[in-house]
């Protein structure tokens, strides 16, 4: 399993998504995945995660257990950037 494959599958199903999958431990069996997409707006976290799980499909059923998933709208992502960087107004 590779981070690039995970990213590609998610992007195929959610075309406007920015996806980053990182193998934090270098073991190929645990990935931190962040998905930013306007398609998440107005949806509950469960619905957002289902969209991502749906993108991975049956072939990657095992992969689901290997993911630590975060989903964000573009606005939420921008907000986090501002917070993290501590940008002054």
């Amino acid at each position, binding site marked *: 399993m590779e981070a690039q494959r995970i990213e590609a599958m998610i992007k195929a199903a959610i075309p406007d998504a920015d996806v980053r999958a990182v193998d934090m431990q270098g073991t190929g069996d645990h990935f931190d995945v962040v998905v930013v997409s306007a398609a998440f707006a107005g949806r509950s*976290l*469960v619905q957002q*995660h*289902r969209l991502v*799980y749906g993108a991975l499909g049956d072939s990657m*059923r095992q992969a*689901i*257990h290997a*993911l*630590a*998933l*975060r989903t964000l709208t573009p606005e939420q992502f921008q907000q986090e950037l501002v917070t993290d960087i501590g940008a002054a107004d």
Partner: protein
Amino acid sequence: MADDIFQKIQSQIQKDRIVLYMKGTPSMPQCGFSQQSTRALQAVGAEFASYNVLEDPLLREGIKQFSNWPTIPQLYIDGEFVGGCDILVSLYENGELEKMIQAGPSA
């Protein structure tokens, strides 16, 4: 056969406001995700019922089908599926979990 476990789950999520399906118990979680989830709930002072899927293979499979969600742990609040560990941690970090715990049954 599937109906029996679905009915059992249905009554479990109606019997208590907050229900966590997990591996192990709150005092002895058997997986890191279940442990994180119980910690988040405890941190916001939630009183919750928990069911150990490791003790009940029918429940372990049944809850995944019932929720249409592939992983455990799973949190239900007021009879509604809220999410797994990732979602729970996100809700805890953004303050939403505490609000959901405090809110009464949905108006």
